[in-house]
């Protein structure tokens, strides 16, 4: 009796401590989840904070007098004269109208540096196409120089204004007040390829490159993956070869992606002599990388088709292949599609293997076909993020937002498909 009571005593006395431990353990769990979710939130906040300015462009709108004497140009149809002419002078003159105090030669040069490098070619292109506009006054919307643009976007942060001289800062402030310098939605971002100038660089080239690469990946990985899943689930005999294939697929799913880059470099480019940096090779490498994901999810989808359906089809005289093609695959399709979309989203975000097969080249033109040199969105982000210029870093985070939007859309589509089409037996 006494023994029992003392034991109960021990338990009761220790309860407080044990409950405290319990609460502490629970707290650790909550803390862990909080850390994970907080890092996700910080990641998103950081990227939006860095990148929202990438969606804004800074323009300088000027009425430029296209004076033939000032440009040393009297015949815009003459190629030689066009290449010799000075198109910067009229821009500076137009700026001077708003800032009359800048009239020394050095100050004029400084004024010219407010405009991006492509301002002069904007005038040249217009005159080349419309020679009759010489000696008239036209309104131009120039892109501001990258440094000016950074200064305007981050006016409240002195860290970003060091690259603009104090005089220029005064001018920019004055022009801002007059409404000559303005900011608007950055349509350049979505209508051009890469450029050496952040103000002129866009992600259209990279998006098209990604699209072409993904099309190749989809065209290879989807049919092959489904065929492989069907074979392994429905036809494969229980033998060593099948086992070997399965082990291979499982291991491939965990091979680091950069190894697939080595494969592409040595086999597709080295052995078969395919060109570098083209979407075809990139798509093939990514297809090999995505295949295990598609096969594994495809097998799960096939497994979930109840055997009664197969038996019923066989019962009315269908051959094994007919059972598979007419009943199993259509019923497993939603699951297979879901897995494939998730695999494609993975491939869309992949960078490392594409670095090795040369998709990191600096490419200005938007690719027009599967055999044009191209880059893809994640590689473009990598290239811009490695640049030290603030303008490119902004573009990189803007690119990340676009990439994440694509990926979230794809994943949402996969979830919607699963909810919409999946049948439970």
């Amino acid at each position, binding site marked *: 009796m006494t023994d029992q009571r003392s034991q109960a005593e021990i*338990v009761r006395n220790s309860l407080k401590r*044990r409950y405290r431990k319990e609460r502490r353990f*629970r707290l650790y*769990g909550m803390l*862990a*989840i909080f850390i994970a979710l907080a890092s996700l939130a910080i990641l998103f906040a950081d990227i939006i904070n860095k990148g929202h300015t990438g969606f804004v462009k800074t323009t300088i709108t000027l009425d430029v007098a296209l004076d033939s004497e000032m440009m040393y140009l009297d015949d815009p149809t003459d190629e030689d004269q066009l290449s010799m002419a000075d198109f910067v002078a009229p821009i500076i003159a137009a700026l001077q109208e708003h800032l009359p105090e800048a009239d020394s030669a050095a100050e004029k040069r400084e004024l010219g540096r407010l405009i991006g490098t492509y301002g002069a070619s904007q005038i040249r292109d217009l005159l080349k196409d419309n020679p009759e506009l010489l000696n008239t006054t036209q309104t131009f919307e120039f892109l501001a120089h990258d440094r000016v643009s950074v200064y305007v976007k981050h006016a409240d942060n002195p860290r970003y204004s060091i690259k603009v001289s104090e005089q220029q800062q005064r001018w920019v402030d004055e022009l801002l007040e007059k409404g000559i310098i303005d900011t608007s939605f950055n349509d350049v971002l979505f209508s051009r390829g890469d450029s050496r100038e952040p103000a002129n660089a866009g992600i259209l080239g990279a998006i098209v490159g990604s699209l072409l690469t993904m099309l190749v990946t989809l065209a290879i990985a989807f049919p092959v993956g489904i065929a492989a899943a*069907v074979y392994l689930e429905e036809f494969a005999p229980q033998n060593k070869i099948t086992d070997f294939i399965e082990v291979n697929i499982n291991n491939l799913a965990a091979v680091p992606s950069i190894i697939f880059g080595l494969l592409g470099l040595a086999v597709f480019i080295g052995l078969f002599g395919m060109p570098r940096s083209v979407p075809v090779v990139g798509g093939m490498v990514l297809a090999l990388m995505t295949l295990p994901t598609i096969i594994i999810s495809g097998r799960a989808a096939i497994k979930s088709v109840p055997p009664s359906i197969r038996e019923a089809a066989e019962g009315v005289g269908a051959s094994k292949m007919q059972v598979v093609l007419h009943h199993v695959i259509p019923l497993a399709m939603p699951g297979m599609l879901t897995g494939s979309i998730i695999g494609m989203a993975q491939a869309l*975000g992949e960078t490392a293997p594409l670095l090795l097969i040369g998709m990191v080249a600096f490419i200005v033109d938007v690719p027009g076909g599967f055999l044009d040199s191209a880059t893809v969105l994640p590689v473009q982000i990598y290239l811009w*993020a490695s640049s030290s210029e603030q303008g490119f870093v902004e573009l990189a985070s803007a690119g990340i937002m676009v990439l994440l939007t694509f*990926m979230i859309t794809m994943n949402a589509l996969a979830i919607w498909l699963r909810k919409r089409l999946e049948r439970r037996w």
Partner: protein
Amino acid sequence: MQTANLLPLVLVLAVVAYGLAYMRSRAVAAPLGGIRNLKALPFYYAARAALWCAIPALLVLAAWAGFEGKVIQGIVIASLPQDVWPESPGQASLILSQISNVAAGKLNPEFVPEHIAGAASVLEAMENKSGNFKAALVLLVAVSGAAFAWTRVSPHINARVNVETTLRRIFFVCAALAVLTTAGIVFSVIIETVRFFGRVPISDFLFSTSWSPQTALRADQVGSEGAFGVIPLFTGTLLISAIALLVAVPVGLLSAIYLSEYASKRVRSTAKPVLEMLAGIPTVVYGFFAALTVAPFIRDLAEAVGLEASSQSALAAGLVMGIMIVPFVSSLSDDVINAVPQSMRDGSLALGATQSETMKKVIFPAALPGIIGGILLAASRAIGETMIVVMAAGLAANLTANPLESVTTVTVQVATLLVGDQEFDSAKTLSAFALGMLLFLVTLLLNVIALKIVRKYREQYD
């Protein structure tokens, strides 16, 4: 004709063959009293014709397109006068690129030596010839295949069996592609690795402690022999992976425990997908975050407490990588924790243990092998991760265990050695393949062990 144009042409031919064979089978069946007297439905005769048309033609096309480039290059090189024959593969690729630039019109033939201009015209002629031959051969194979199948449309032949056997074989080839991929990986790394060890002794590679792959441009240059000791790369990889696991294992494991044992259904159904979002974010985004946000933050923080930190510290890369693999650890641990039978849980609770005691003393030991398997898989992922370390870790191969210093990893070196223009055949380029082989072997080993542990453990309770 270009491969890109031939491909749709073959497919169109296959469709035509399908249509013709379909009509033919109906025509054959009509005098016999309808398609019921055929051995198979018209669809199968037609499908067989399409397969006969497309498959051999596509195989020929693939083989030709695969080897065309190499063969033509060989012929062009052989057409050069003997005294300018290239001595090394590097020189050969230089000459070839010059020749192809001339042929493509990017280089004016007047500005290059005569033999190059001559070879360019040879190249152009060969490419034309090869294109024509390829087109003729592929079309011939396609048409004759379709014709053969067309003649075999007969009421006595069961086309369904033919079609189904062919399809099954195609399915098998698709499944075997995984084996082919593995073989391709092994082949591509082994050949170059063997060539690498022909120049650098394997003992130097494995045991030397300095890594600087710059080889001399001139033979008489001083002090740039190139050192290929993998140890600093490996310690760098291990340092970053260890930091990553130190973050990911506790956070991942504890959140898995909380979600599976404590959280209400509502919390679980929202927190889990959000957690899994971490796994879906592209690695280049993590790299951006590590390089431009976390690394400067850590440097400033270290400076504030009087420590010296590199702006490309191992800590930044490791921390961010750890966050990336959290969902990996948590979903694998979640699986094994849920696989522990409910009866064990109930037994422990019935004896008066608190939930945390049940977790720590009953479920965790039972799930341990599976959790270790999951951790090994996560480690293999951390070792093979490239973009975060390329962007946030350094290039200098420091042999250090200080997480505030900059280290480099195996994957960083593979990527930097192979990005951009490479001289083929230099020890520097080949070393990247040797590193790739090392990486492949290590991750393979980890995966095999992990999968074995996980599988064995699953069988225990099934």
